[in-house]
């Protein structure tokens, strides 16, 4: 079970990462870019969390009668990282709102047309 885990979590991470990256690069819609960015970041969080998995360990929430926990440090870090990425996404979407007010569109190509 676990050594299988050791293998496939990376694949999930990579697939997610590529999906997000592709969305950021290829989609003209600014909102979708932000979503892609978020997926991209999330994949990294999954990478961290899956790295923290310890064989037979459970979620690092202290409880009586549980001895084996996953490594808590990555969880703590990722909580922070998630906050950061949420802030980024919120800011990004806020920018998109302002852009739409200014340009009347959220489509990159239309914006370029308007700019030059």
């Amino acid at each position, binding site marked *: 079970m676990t050594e299988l885990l050791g293998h496939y979590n990376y694949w999930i991470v990579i697939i997610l990462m590529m999906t997000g990256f592709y969305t950021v690069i290829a989609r003209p819609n600014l909102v979708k870019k932000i979503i892609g960015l978020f997926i991209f970041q999330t994949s990294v969080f999954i990478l961290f969390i899956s790295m923290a998995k310890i064989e037979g360990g*459970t979620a690092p*929430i202290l409880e009586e009668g549980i001895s084996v926990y996953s490594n808590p440090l990555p969880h703590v870090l990722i909580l922070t990282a998630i906050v950061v990425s949420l802030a980024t996404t919120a800011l990004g979407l806020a920018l998109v709102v302002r852009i739409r007010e200014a340009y009347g569109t959220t489509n990159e190509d239309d914006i370029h047309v308007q700019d030059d």
Partner: protein
Amino acid sequence: MFITVSIVILVAIAVGLVRAFRGPTLYDRVLAANMIGTLTVLMVAVLGFMTGRPEFLDIALVYVLISFVSTIAVLRVYASRSSTPGNGGK
């Protein structure tokens, strides 16, 4: 036992996904997403019992609200878009 239940729920989720992908209308997708949300909540709850960590219920609880809010949010967004000009992404 819990495993059986969670597997059944997973199958249900899969079926929901099919509808979500097929559409055809946006509303079908949102509907499917909403249902999948409900299913996920239950899944999490069951998993909590399965792994002997019922604290997971908190997550499930939060998830109920999130999926509800997200449904409403999506509807709001598309309602506003269909009403206002300058349609964004295709």
